[in-house]
């Protein structure tokens, strides 16, 4: 019997949990200001997240999907992407989106039940949040196909969770991307849990990165709590894709430190011990340590940052809470480029009812 093909999946970590470099660091990581910038973004994502959960608990926000613990992956991807690239998010990658110019007010509006949250003022070409699992991976492949056909040096990045890699759409997207050598990076955020189902019950595959292999594209595993490794790996994959070298799958190993959403109670199915252990690997601590050891971060810096983040988040919350509800016309606006007649009639009915009930 002859071996006709061999495959391997590499794992990368550049910064360990105590903030020590485990290999030679890339240029951006040797730039103190750039590292501080990423640390600030990670901190802002975390402060925002805690506030959003609090808003939900106090009845001022709908169900909310927390990003707690994912900050390194999210900021690493954001920092690696170019502004002209296109992001196809799932629904908790706020760190990437904030980096790309989505506002906290928009995130709150979306989870607050208002479609205007999807109308990003910043990254106009990015896809909106995607709740139907894995469907966005094909959109990213389609966007990448457009860039390829038009000869634009742009890439698409699709996020997907560990559970999402069980969906047919994910395999179809990988297959298409490989077959057509599309400029797309699939960012698999393996946080251990698809609501209550642990990744070991999801698949017998040792890694999720290896799902790339069957599609004929490279797959890499990174420490998703290491912002340097994430940014460096995604940056390299995007450089390759941009230069016509084809797609890539990057599996970021991280941990969902929160419940799945605010509607979930993970204590029903997840051992407390596991969460406790995962906190030791959380992503902010190691960057702070890295900066501190290099003399680029002080206790005063940390205090000032926390204060600035809280102020910025509070301002966004005020703006969100002060955003009046849309009128009933909003149901009809943007349904088509121009509204068909029967819908114009229904719009008028809705207006009349709104007036009758003393609504808005």
């Amino acid at each position, binding site marked *: 019997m002859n071996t006709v093909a061999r495959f391997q999946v590499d794992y990368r970590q550049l910064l360990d949990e105590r903030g020590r470099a485990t290999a030679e660091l890339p240029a951006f990581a040797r730039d103190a200001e750039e590292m501080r910038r990423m640390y600030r973004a990670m901190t802002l994502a975390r402060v925002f997240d805690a506030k959003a959960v609090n808003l939900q608990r106090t009845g001022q926000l*709908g169900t909310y999907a927390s990003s707690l613990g994912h900050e390194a992956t999210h900021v690493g991807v954001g920092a690696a992407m170019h502004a002209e690239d296109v992001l196809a998010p799932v629904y908790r990658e706020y760190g990437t989106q904030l980096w790309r110019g989505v506002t906290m007010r928009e995130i709150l509006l979306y989870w607050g039940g*208002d479609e205007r949250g999807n109308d990003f003022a910043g990254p106009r070409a990015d896809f909106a949040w995607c709740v139907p699992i894995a469907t966005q991976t094909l959109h990213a492949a389609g966007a990448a196909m457009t860039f390829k056909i038009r000869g634009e040096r742009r890439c698409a990045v699709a996020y997907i969770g560990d559970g999402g890699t069980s969906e*047919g759409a994910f395999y179809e997207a990988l297959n298409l991307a490989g077959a057509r050598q599309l400029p797309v990076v699939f960012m698999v955020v393996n946080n251990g849990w*698809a609501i209550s189902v642990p990744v070991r*019950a*999801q698949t017998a595959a040792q890694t999720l990165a290896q799902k790339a292999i069957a599609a004929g594209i490279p797959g890499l595993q990174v420490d998703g709590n290491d912002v340097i490794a994430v940014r460096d790996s995604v940056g390299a994959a995007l450089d390759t894709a941009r230069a016509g070298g084809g797609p890539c799958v990057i599996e970021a190993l991280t941990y969902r430190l929160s419940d799945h959403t605010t509607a*979930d109670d993970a204590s029903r199915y997840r051992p407390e011990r596991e969460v406790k252990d995962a906190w030791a690997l959380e992503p902010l601590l190691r960057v702070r340590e890295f900066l501190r050891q290099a003399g680029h971060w002080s206790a005063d810096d940390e205090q000032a940052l926390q204060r600035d983040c809280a102020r910025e988040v509070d301002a966004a919350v005020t703006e969100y809470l002060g955003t009046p509800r849309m009128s*009933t016309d909003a149901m009809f606006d943007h349904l088509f480029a121009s509204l068909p007649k029967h819908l114009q009639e229904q719009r008028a009915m*809705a207006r009349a009812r709104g007036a009758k009930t003393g609504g808005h």
Partner: protein
Amino acid sequence: MQWRVLAAQRRAATELPKLTMVEAIAMAQAWEMQHDPSVVVIGQDVGANGGVFRATAGLQERFGADRVQDTPLAEATIAGMSVGMAAHGLKPVAEIQFMGFIYPALDQIVNHMSRMRHRTRGRLSCPVVIRTPHGGGIHAPEHHSESTETMLCHIPGIRVVIPSTPARAYGLLLAAIRDPDPVVFLEPVRLYRAARQEIADDGRALPLDTAFVLREGTDVTIVTWGAMTVETLRAVAELDKEGISAEVIDLATLSPIDSATILASVAKTGRLVIVHEAARNVGVGAEIAAIVAEHGLYDLQAPIQRVTGYDTIMPLFRLEQEYIPSAQRIVDAVQVTLAA
């Protein structure tokens, strides 16, 4: 003697548990798993988590991880494996976590589940129940509040059932599991915990393909289902005050439709209002109107009225109450039929 009967009734009443709809759904599954070893429960988060709405709470503990299985996160997998299991002797009760996520499963439902019996000339069949939450009104995120039953009703070879109370959920789900053909069982999320009802856990099923007359009346027939029964009964209470007597029919099985019950009622009242949360265009209400036009036109004293959602995307929750028909809209529609 009278007091003894009353005391016995009171005792029976206090002994029966008062259950929410979601508890009744879990209880029906447990009953049937206990009495029929071929029944299995599958879906996302139905195991240790007991379902995101708790509709399978306690089942895995009681019946084990073989019979109550968390599937991989893939709806086509859930529906497709149900086809394979059902064709070979099991009776899967499969949960699709929200109706908005049923679409990857539609290929399996349309092309296999619904026609297995027919295309194999009865050699193989698909006794599957697909349970899925239905409708809005609970401030849920995007894609979690739609009412797209009409898509399912258009598929030949499956039944579509929707309960409107805990007791009907219990009885209809038992009937759905026992039915030899595929049933999609829609569960109105707004009613999951809206009310409690005493239910005897006696394994007694309610009939499928049968509408329930919730209230008799003489002036107008209102046909509705699921969560809209609540708004309708609220509207009817208002109409009572004005001396208008409405008959309310809970359709319960959306496909096939119990035409006889509707036609008999319209023959009596001469007026028909149809209420559903789903969009109007090609909704189940259109089919009901067509049935009455075909078979009961001369009983009608006024044009049929439909009270429905708009033909728009179900809005996110800040506007969802503007979309979902209100009791006032139902009252208005009844007034229109009476003015005609």
